[in-house]
């Protein structure tokens, strides 16, 4: 059985047990959240050993080159030595600037932007809740313009971190956030490309950031945003999005309601279904999918079948954490 060396101690890993599972089993205090290779909160540096491709999926090239890897996605077959990330990749503390309700379930959380905190709108950060529990939240603010960080947090009943944010967090409280990460953001270089943005619930957070970033960078192609919820009350930022639609000829906002008869101006049906129905062939389009995991995965396959290239599909499934 392989040995994992960490913080001056050695831990024996069972066969086919991930490094993360091994450390948790030994009661070692380490960060993690999704246990599925998505949130990157379990990132460590491998000092001895070679990270697998799967354990480096989604990491920036600079991090890969420095042997960073995700503990939840690596099963040691030989002895390895690991260390916590360097200072540049550690969490920073910041203050809560404002808390505002966007609808009955969604709170807009604005944080003071720490000095030199760089990110692309649409990326996500890991925020520490009670007892160091970490959860991922996407950035809806503009990196180039807004001097705060904006998150949209949906209240999950019984949710450890979202419940705490909704009921206990106050303006001026200190919170700890990781550097921003993820590849779901606007990339300049093809200003004429058509964009299709599909989100459910707070999947709008990254899409709102991406949409405003695209406009800020003078994107010329058509931009269709489909935001879905089961009821009209589940949608939010409706007026802001209608205003963007009215001002920019290339912006098209499609609020979708999947249950019952929607109010005037909204579409009946699921956002992903409507989007794929109404846009038809997607060859040459760039597509962003954010929100519920099942929606994101099935829409990804459908968009691909409708002609979108795999490299043009950016997907951010909000996979629930596994504590």
């Amino acid at each position, binding site marked *: 059985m392989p040995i994992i060396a960490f913080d001056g101690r050695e831990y024996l890993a069972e066969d086919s047990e991930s490094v993360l599972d091994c450390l948790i089993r030994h009661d070692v205090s380490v960060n993690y959240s999704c246990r599925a290779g998505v949130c990157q909160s379990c990132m460590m540096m491998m000092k001895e050993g070679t990270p697998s491709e799967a354990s480096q999926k989604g990491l920036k090239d600079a991090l890969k080159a420095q042997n960073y890897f995700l503990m939840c996605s690596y099963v040691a077959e030989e002895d390895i030595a690991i260390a916590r990330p360097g200072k540049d990749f550690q969490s920073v503390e910041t203050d809560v600037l404002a808390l505002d309700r966007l609808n009955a379930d969604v709170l807009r959380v604005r944080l003071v932007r720490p000095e030199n905190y760089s990110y692309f709108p649409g990326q996500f950060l890991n925020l520490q809740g009670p007892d160091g529990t970490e959860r991922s939240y996407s950035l809806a603010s503009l990196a180039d313009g807004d001097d705060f960080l904006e998150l949209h947090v949906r209240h999950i009943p019984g949710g450890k971190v979202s419940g705490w944010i909704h009921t206990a967090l106050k303006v001026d409280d200190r919170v700890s956030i990781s550097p921003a990460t993820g590849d779901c953001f606007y990339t300049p270089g093809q200003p004429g490309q058509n964009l299709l943005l599909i989100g459910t619930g707070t999947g709008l957070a990254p899409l709102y950031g991406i949409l405003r970033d695209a406009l800020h960078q003078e994107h010329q192609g058509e931009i269709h945003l489909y935001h879905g919820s089961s009821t009209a009350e589940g949608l939010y930022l409706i007026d802001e999005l209608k205003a963007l639609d009215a001002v920019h000829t290339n912006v098209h906002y499609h609020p979708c309601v999947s249950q019952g008869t929607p109010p005037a101006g909204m579409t009946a049906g699921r956002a992903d279904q409507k989007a794929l129905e109404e846009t038809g062939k997607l060859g040459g389009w760039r597509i962003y999918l954010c929100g519920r995991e099942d929606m994101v995965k099935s829409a*990804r396959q459908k968009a691909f*079948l409708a002609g979108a290239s795999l490299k043009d599909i950016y997907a951010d499934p909000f996979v629930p954490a596994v504590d």
Partner: protein
Amino acid sequence: MSDSLFNRLGGDAAVDAAVDIFYRKVLADDRINEFFADVDMDKQAAKQKAFLTMAFGGPNSYTGEDMRKGHAHLVARGLNDSHFDAVVENLGSTLKELGVSDELIGEVAAIAETTRNDVLGR
């Protein structure tokens, strides 16, 4: 080495060009798409690449035994000659779309053919 099949097809770039087209064909083909229903597209796309590299005669470290093990769970679900033929057919039409000559397509089909018994676990 410069005239190996893999290089004549265009190497890694040819695999990259083919993967989207081939994978889309497979997912749309009702004869075989149930075997590829796994919605984790990142993993699947990586495997399609491995498949194409191998079929193009490119560098790979798969043995016949790997092919046997890798497809055993599919054989248990009914994978047979007709499915194998369908995959080879999709491979051929993908290459045709990319403008590859019939002669080279024949060579690719011949490589795929050498794996038939292992893939089907015989």
